[in-house]
Structure formats: structure tokens, C-alpha cells
């Protein structure tokens, strides 16, 4: 039994034509690249992965982020999946719907504004996921949620998807 982990690189993210995060590059001594999610608009990024060796159980999405300017407040992250089994599912890939969202609220830990945080989303709405399916992962900052209280952008530096191979 092992855990399979796949990286969701901000530079590899895809977007719809509206409501997408800005791509930012900062860093004094090494490049810090990320996606800056707005504080008042819901913005989303997407990745396509193949669920190689997926066995069973929930997916876990680790979302590494930091605040652009804030040093307090909560950020609400949500994720949705759209899963297709090639050669089996007859669903039109261009009109496929996303499954119900899963969400997590992560609190800024203070002290240093731009410290790195890790929010963990447990994805239970798996859209009938099976091994080697194609999985579109949508990651959103739910900025309009009343529980999202952090001022300013939340910058995503890296996300991972992990699951069990048995």
C-alpha cells in the first residue's frame, strides 16, 4: 500500500475565460511563482491529471498558499472534480459537469504576513473515480463566502493531489 501524489503546478494551471487568478512572480532570492486569488471575486484554476494507480478512498488536496498583504483572517478554499473514464464514459468531455464541491477554511497564522500555509481539502465527492481515469481538478478561493475574511490576495504556490493505490 502506498500513497500516490501528483503535483498541481501553478504554471501548468488552465483557466476559463473569466474569473481566473493572476499569475505572479516575486521572491528576493529565488523566484516565488503563484496564482493570486482575489479577495472579493471567486476565481478558479484547473488542472488535468490521470489517476494513475488510484485504488480507493478520498482524494486529499494540499493547498500551499500565502497572503499577499494580510496577516490575519480566514481563506476558504474549495475543490471540485470532473472524472471521465476514457473508452467507457459516453459523456461529452466539453459539457461534462463538475461534482459537488468540498471545502476547507484555513486561518492565517499571523506573526509574518507572507508566511506559507497549507490548507488540506478532503475530497469526498469523487464523481465515480476509478484507476487511470482522467480527472479535471478545479480549485477556487471562495472569496464571497462569509467565512472568507482575509483581506487581499491569497497566493497559491503549489497544490498536490494524493490518494491510496489500494
Amino acid at each position, binding site marked *: 500500500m502506498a500513497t500516490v501524489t501528483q503535483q498541481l503546478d501553478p504554471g501548468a494551471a488552465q483557466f476559463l475565460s473569466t474569473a481566473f487568478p493572476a499569475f505572479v512572480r516575486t521572491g528576493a532570492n529565488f523566484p516565488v511563482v503563484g496564482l493570486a486569488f482575489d*479577495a*472579493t471575486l471567486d476565481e478558479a484554476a484547473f488542472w488535468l491529471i490521470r489517476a494513475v494507480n488510484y485504488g480507493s478512498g478520498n482524494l486529499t488536496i494540499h493547498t500551499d498558499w500565502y497572503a499577499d498583504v494580510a*496577516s490575519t483572517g480566514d481563506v476558504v478554499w474549495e475543490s471540485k472534480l470532473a472524472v471521465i473514464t476514457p473508452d467507457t464514459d459516453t459523456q461529452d468531455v466539453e459539457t461534462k459537469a463538475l461534482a459537488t464541491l468540498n471545502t476547507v477554511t484555513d486561518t492565517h497564522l499571523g506573526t509574518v*504576513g507572507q508566511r506559507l500555509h497549507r490548507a488540506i481539502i478532503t475530497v469526498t465527492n469523487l464523481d465515480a473515480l476509478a484507476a487511470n481515469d482522467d480527472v479535471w481538478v478545479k480549485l477556487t478561493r471562495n472569496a464571497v463566502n462569509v467565512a472568507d475574511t*482575509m*483581506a487581499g490576495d491569497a497566493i497559491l504556490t503549489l497544490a498536490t493531489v494524493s490518494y491510496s493505490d489500494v
Partner: protein
Amino acid sequence: MAVMDTTNRLRTWSQAMRDWPRTVGMPNVTKTELRAAVNATDDWLEANQPSFNAALPLSFRSQASVAQKTFLFSYTAMRRAGLLKAQED
């Protein structure tokens, strides 16, 4: 002039968060608290606009538009807070 309507206050709040300078940092407040501060600032500007106008020298006061006076006010306040870099600096 009247205070801004809800939409304009909302957009001021949203854009302020997008443009907030890292050099000054965000105070230890939530989005809701920042929004209340935007509203309070707008209220204060509305209430104190007459006294600001009266403080201006007559020549400028009589010649300048509201937008021109607002520009002057904003630049002066920004310089005082270290947010306005001049070519001479």
C-alpha cells in the same frame, strides 16, 4: 457631492485590496473591518469636504474643480504617508 453608493464603496474596497502596497502592509484587520473603514473614510470625506474647501487659498478654491481638489488632497496625503515618490527623490 454625496457619499458613494454601495457599488462604488464595494469597488473601492475591492480595488484597494488588490492595489494595497506591500511596502506599508495591511493592518491586522479582516475584509469586513477594512470595508467598514472604506465606508468611514467616505463618510468623513463627505462631512469634512466643506472645511477642506474652505482651507484652500481663494485663488485655487475658486478655480479648481472637485476632481482637481481631490487629486491635490490625495497626492498630499500620499506624500505625507510615504506613498508618493517624487522625481527628485
